[in-house]
């Protein structure tokens, strides 16, 4: 078995076990109320933590300027998502803005 396959299988198994963790454990262990109430914030907190560095950082440094195309197009996409609540419009307008701004700037 090649080195790449050892890595792939290890990561695959670890990822699967991570995803299974609480789904499996919940039968055996009832989490306290505070944990249950905190779970509602998981999607919003995790996704925002991925989004903001993706659009606001360039090569690991904060880039809050008008020549950061990802920040501008991301900002437009956030407005579209907020107004339309449509994934199709958000991704579509976001990508077109990105291309238009890359061409303009």
């Amino acid at each position: 078995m090649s080195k790449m396959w050892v890595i792939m299988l290890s990561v695959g198994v670890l990822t699967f076990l991570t995803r299974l963790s609480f789904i499996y454990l919940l039968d055996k262990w009832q989490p306290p109320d505070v944990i249950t109430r905190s779970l509602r914030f998981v999607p919003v907190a995790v996704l925002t933590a991925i989004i903001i560095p993706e659009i606001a950082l360039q090569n690991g440094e904060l880039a809050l300027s008008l020549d950061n195309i990802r920040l501008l197009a991301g900002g437009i996409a956030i407005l579209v998502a907020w107004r339309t609540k449509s994934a199709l419009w958000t991704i579509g307008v976001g990508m077109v803005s990105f291309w238009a701004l890359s061409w303009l700037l």
Partner: protein
Amino acid sequence: MDRTAEKTSPLQEFLLGIKGELPILLGVTPFGMIYGVLATSAGLAAWDAQMMSSVVFAGSSQFMLVQFVNLGTPASMMIITAFVINLRHALYSASVAPYIQHLSLLWKFILSYLLTDEAYAVAIMHFQEPSNSKNKHWFLLGAGAALWSCWQLSTAAGIFLGAQVPPSWGLDFTLALTFIAIAVPAINDKASFLSALSAGLTAILTRGLPFKLNLIAAALVGITVGLWSDQK
């Protein structure tokens, strides 16, 4: 309460799951293609690159792994980093667990395998809607299966197209757009807004942490702030 939702059959839920996932696939497809392109240009055999999409089945860690192949990173380092990047899935696991607790172990295994960012995010919004449907797990199965198929096909397309997709197209930007499309509509009160704001700020402030641990730090701060704001 939506009365029809109480009677949805497994098939209806499954199809609703596919339908809910479809718009997201617009953002996932280019992302999968770039993975395929990067994997082959990093020197992975086409078959290995394709199999990684089903064995690992986690976009961001697959990107990281193929970049590490390029850099000649030691295997142990690659495994640990991918594991830490994927730790956020434990939060997803805790979040869906109450909704699928009654299912058999086989179901739990299948749904865990399919518990990616994009399938989770779409399914959890559906789970949180008030309804007594006992078949909601079929929704996650539908969303997960749609995403899985799309991920395999777009990987294959990327491997096939290879270097014909120039980086100047900025297709990797669709990852951020996909998550914006899911996260923004889910911000619907002060607590969730403050949760998002604090998570985003923390992710930036802690960006120097290794293994993308800023993601975990940001998630924990965001959840704590949301909870605190909710209790006031």
